[in-house]
């Protein structure tokens, strides 16, 4: 069992847990994730490790409630425990001093780009971050991101905060600045955002890494549920990734495979909501 030491609400339907998991904390590097199973009837699903405290033996996860498992997770409180947590899974992000890097996060992807930005700054990079959300209340981890970056841009689709528009806006401006070269871009968020960023940086010839989120089961390369196509080759994202060269990723396939269980996910969610609606906060 993995006890929840603290719980924080970061925004509408976005929650943060600190979990006791010392073996995982001791090994974890930025870009890695865990797979959780809440209880005996639960499914196995992945969440990025947003932060660790090796001394305290804890890991931090930040998740957006989107369906049955994440909503159920959100109903747990401090003092409750999660049945199974395994990790740290996946390849760590390749951290080096690239020079000037742009770290981009969209929606709950900000929780996933935060550890990357932090590591890039510690490795001596100049870190410029761009985080985006639909509207102001959905912007998460702004102060964390500010600390992890030399400069931070915030965008909202509706203009209720920061720059109005998509994250590609400030990115285009940065690329257009002929005096300062962008050496590398890291981007984690919804597929349309990653795809748009990949298209932008491809034209500009800037190496770009995205973190892919296909459906996973074991997370150790045993099942192949997480198949993605990169550069024409099939890869298992849980062991070969989740970081991949954005310019080689087949995003259409990723979207197609993410949809595989839409019908069942809806059924599962409606069944759960019917019983537990009052517990959602």
């Amino acid at each position: 069992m993995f006890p929840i030491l603290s719980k924080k609400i970061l925004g509408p339907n976005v929650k943060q847990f600190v979990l006791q998991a010392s073996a995982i904390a001791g090994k974890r590097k930025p870009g890695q994730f865990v797979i959780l199973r809440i209880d005996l009837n639960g499914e196995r699903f992945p969440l990025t490790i947003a932060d660790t405290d090796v001394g305290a033996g804890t890991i931090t996860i930040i998740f957006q409630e989107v369906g049955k498992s994440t909503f159920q997770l959100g109903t747990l409180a401090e003092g409750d425990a999660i049945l199974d947590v395994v990790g740290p899974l996946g390849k760590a992000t390749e951290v080096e001093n690239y020079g000037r890097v742009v770290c981009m996060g969209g929606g709950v992807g900000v929780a996933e780009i935060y550890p990357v930005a932090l590591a890039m700054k510690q490795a001596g990079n100049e870190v410029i971050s761009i985080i985006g959300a639909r509207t102001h209340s959905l912007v998460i981890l702004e102060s964390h991101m500010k600390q992890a970056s030399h400069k931070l841009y915030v965008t909202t689709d509706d203009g209720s905060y920061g720059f109005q528009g998509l994250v590609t806006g400030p990115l285009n401006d940065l690329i257009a600045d002929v005096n300062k070269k962008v050496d590398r871009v890291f981007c984690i968020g919804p597929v349309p955002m990653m795809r748009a960023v990949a298209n932008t940086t491809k034209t500009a010839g800037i190496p770009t890494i995205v973190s892919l989120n296909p459906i996973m089961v074991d997370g150790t390369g045993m099942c192949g549920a997480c198949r993605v196509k990169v550069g024409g080759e099939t890869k298992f994202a849980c062991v070969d990734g989740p970081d991949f060269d954005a310019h080689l990723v087949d995003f259409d396939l990723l979207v197609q495979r993410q949809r595989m269980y839409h019908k069942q996910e809806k059924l599962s969610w409606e069944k759960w909501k019917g019983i537990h609606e009052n517990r959602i906060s």
Partner: protein
Amino acid sequence: MAKKIVHEAMAMPEQDPQERIYNFKEVPLGYTPEMAIGEASRCVQCKKPVCISGCPVGIDIPEFIKLTAEGKFIEAYYKVMEKNVLPSICGRVCPQEEQCQAPCIMGIKHEPIAIGRLERFVADYAREMDKMLIPERERRIAKKVAVVGSGPAGITVAGDLAQRGYNVTMFEALHMTGGVLGYGIPEFRLPKAILAKEVNVLTQLGVDVRTNYVIGITEMIDELRAEYDAVFVGTGAGLPYFMNIPGENLNGVYSANEFLTRANLMKSYLFPQVDTPIHVGKNVAVIGGGNTAMDSVRTAKRLGAEKAYLIYRRSEVEMPARNEEIHHAKQEGIIFRLLESPVEIKGDKDGWVREIELQKMQLGEPDASGRRRPVAIEGSEYSFPIDTVIMAVGQGPNPILLNTTPGLELNRRGFIRADPVTGATSKEGVFAGGDIVSGGATVILAMGNGRQAAGAIHEYLS
């Protein structure tokens, strides 16, 4: 007076095929004590028993059968346990027709003694009577052994060494122990409750079982070596192969590992009572001819497939699956398409499987495995509608542990190179056995390897 020969083996009662295709309950129901005595009495107790030579772990078969014939079931069970610590499992899943029952003298003119069914009976009897053998810890030895992987190989090493008095910790990547016995082989062939009892014996012996612990990720072999006096690696052959044909990434195409993991480990046949979904369309095609393929196709049938096809590129004689599984699959209405192989899977605009294109094959010269090689017949391609495709075309070694363990030598096929007798690897104090050394093999061989490695580890530490 010579004993009267009974030509046919005692049949084991089974669930009716028409009923069982709607449930996940076990298919063979087991012998009654009378049936067991009847079958055991058919054994002529050869002076030079050849059956033992067919058993990879050398069970004293005539003796346990004799005890069974005398109604001394618990004693018979103890006799089996001297050589096989998982008899209720092996009685169910061993390929007896190729092993102990193959040389049986009775089998020359009649049906061989149903040794597997008898093994299952005595083990089930002992379990149901609460007489499972929980070995006493001989003594305490202040040495620690780490066992990586909780399949039959790991279970055997952990049990043997705990019994000898070592402090044993068993690490398992998944949330459940048992290896393939837990996540792969379906409930209708090996009830999980039986597996749980076997693993429980380890806990009672004081083995510290740590699930959710991936060696090579959560902790490295070199770190284990620093903390433990010896390490055994029994991580199995868990990497699923695909065929590299077009369309394999369409929605509705599974590896057998994923399909069976969802169905067994995650119990998705109970969805939506449990959270893990599974997709089974009307027409399901399983590619392959081994036990994995049989388990997948019979699971698909139970999950509601109207037509469940088994597509295999050779003929039935060459199928590596146990005879009983082939027989049961046929009874359950599985459609066999032999001497055919897929060349392409075709999908619709949303990326869902719609059609499979097969090519007919014929058998040519024998290949390295001694089986006749399938040769494609040009121009014989044809397609038919399909909603789910399950690839059961073999498994390789999972690279996680291998890639993170410097100095661990591999063989040409990418499995761990280990001494065939002791299981010793190129790394001092690290032993290996089971499928991670042999490639996909059998439960009994993994167990036999484990037993030998446990002996070698004991010697190494003495």
